[in-house]
């Protein structure tokens, strides 16, 4: 692999052991994949920061890097395993809280933005054609599909290495020729709302993993594109779609590629596969997978007002970026009276939810519906927030 003089210097350890290890990681991976060289990135986003996921080995590794390593570019990190700065509404062992705090502290010492979110694009909007090194599979798919920025799915420590040296290996979706659609998928039932967009994504990931699908799914909202990308990245290894009227790289339906169709039967099949509970059984509603921007709280309040609901009989939990905690903290009391809990900087998928004793929850997130039963043994109903507000309004 070709290395610049500066990259050689870092590899020799002239900028310290942390950068040396980071450079070695990227160079060895690049060589294994046959990459010609490294490229500079403008934003690194690191997944794998939840203590319940990475445990003591991850903590030790991150603290080791933080003893001398500093980020070289704008860098953000994924949700933690417990809410940041607020008490969780479910049991989190003390050891977990303490070790999670150490992981976050180590990241901040390295110069990471106080982030704790799976929507790094909400903190810094990626530009078309820009190179990124992101972990978090849903954010990767959104960056490529919605923003036309370029990133592969970088595993936790790999994105961390990219943050420390501001580079990644030139391979995969960083190369123009790998960003062209390989299959056209005709969407026969245009998705309504977030749940159906997620179900569509689930089937895309399941059926076309390894392909780069071209889709025409009507006028999708941004939140629908995000829900679709997140589900496709969970059920398969989908890292990019080209979506008509949405993707900056849309050049119209591609010629000369295979064609497939997704119809109403496929969406039904998706729902049958991911749904394991009914709305009646749901003990609470969880929304914010991927995270909502913090103004979503207003939408919930408006929805309650529209249906004349002052307090919900069963709670709504909303996951938002970690740095949203301060403005929202002032609202916490008011929200609690309405039976709404804010979960800043965390994610139920990487949490200790399995210890909560919860048996069934409702959510509008197909990604969560895919992971929560597998990770925490919790059964899941798919519903919109409005369905829930109507069902559990006082």
């Amino acid at each position, binding site marked *: 692999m070709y290395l610049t003089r500066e990259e050689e210097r870092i590899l020799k350890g002239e900028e310290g052991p942390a950068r040396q290890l980071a450079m070695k990681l990227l160079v060895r*991976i690049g060589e*294994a994949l046959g990459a010609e060289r490294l490229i500079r990135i403008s934003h690194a986003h690191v*997944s794998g920061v939840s203590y319940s996921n990475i445990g003591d080995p991850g903590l030790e590794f991150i603290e080791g890097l933080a003893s001398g390593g500093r980020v070289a570019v704008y860098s953000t990190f994924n949700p933690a395993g417990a809410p940041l700065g607020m008490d969780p509404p479910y049991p989190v062992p003390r050891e977990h809280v303490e070790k999670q705090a150490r992981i976050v502290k180590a990241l901040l010492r390295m110069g990471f933005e106080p982030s704790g979110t799976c929507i790094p694009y909400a903190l810094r909007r990626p530009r078309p054609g820009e190179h990124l090194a992101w972990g978090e599979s849903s954010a990767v798919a959104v960056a490529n599909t919605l923003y036309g920025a370029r990133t592969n799915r970088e*595993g*936790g420590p790999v994105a961390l290495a990219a943050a420390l040296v501001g580079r990644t290996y030139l391979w995969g979706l960083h190369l123009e020729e790998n960003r062209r659609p390989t299959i056209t998928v005709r969407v026969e039932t245009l998705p309504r709302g977030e749940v159906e967009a997620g179900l569509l994504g689930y089937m895309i990931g399941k059926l076309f993993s390894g392909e780069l699908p071209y889709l025409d799914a009507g006028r999708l909202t941004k939140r629908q594109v995000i829900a679709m990308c997140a589900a496709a990245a969970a059920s398969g290894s989908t890292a990019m779609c080209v979506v008509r009227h949405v993707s900056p790289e849309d050049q119209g339906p591609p010629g000369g590629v295979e064609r497939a169709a997704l119809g109403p039967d496929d969406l039904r099949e998706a729902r049958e596969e991911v749904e394991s509970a009914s709305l009646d059984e749901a003990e609470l509603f969880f929304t914010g997978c991927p995270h909502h921007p913090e103004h979503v709280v207003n939408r919930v309040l408006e929805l309650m007002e529209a249906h004349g609901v002052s307090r919900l009989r069963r709670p709504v939990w909303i996951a938002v970026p970690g740095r949203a905690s301060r403005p929202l903290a002032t609202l916490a009391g008011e929200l609690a009276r309405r039976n709404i809990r804010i979960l800043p900087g965390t994610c139920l998928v990487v949490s200790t939810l399995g210890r909560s004793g919860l048996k069934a929850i409702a959510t509008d997130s197909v990604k969560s519906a895919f992971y929560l039963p597998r990770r925490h043994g919790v059964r899941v109903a798919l519903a919109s927030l409005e369905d829930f507000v109507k069902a559990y309004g006082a």
Partner: protein
Amino acid sequence: MPERRVKLRGIVEGNGSGETLVVHGRLSFYGEVDPERGTLTDGRSIAGRVLIMEGGRGSTVGPYILYALARRGLAPSAIAVVEAEPILVAGAVMASVPLASGLPPRLLEELRDGCRARLYSKPPSAMLIVEC
């Protein structure tokens, strides 16, 4: 089986030797390797072995597991695979385990546990020597 010498592609440098541990497929370190004991889910020990397999797969937490094994002295002494993917390479670099790719799939078919193996890896080349 007589002594076999195979030229491989060196990915992570170093030399390692030990008994072979053969996995006919792709291994996910996260979920399929116990980081406290250094064993696979079927109970076989990975510590000090020359791990021979098709490749790695799965969760991005995998590299931390390999790193954890190394910290506890339970890492394999070397890894030889048909194909190396980023997660496995990251783990091998973090754990300083010699890694080589390009193992012929036919040889993987023939190999069994408990043979003597040595891997010499000096990227871009490597040599695997196996005696049964």
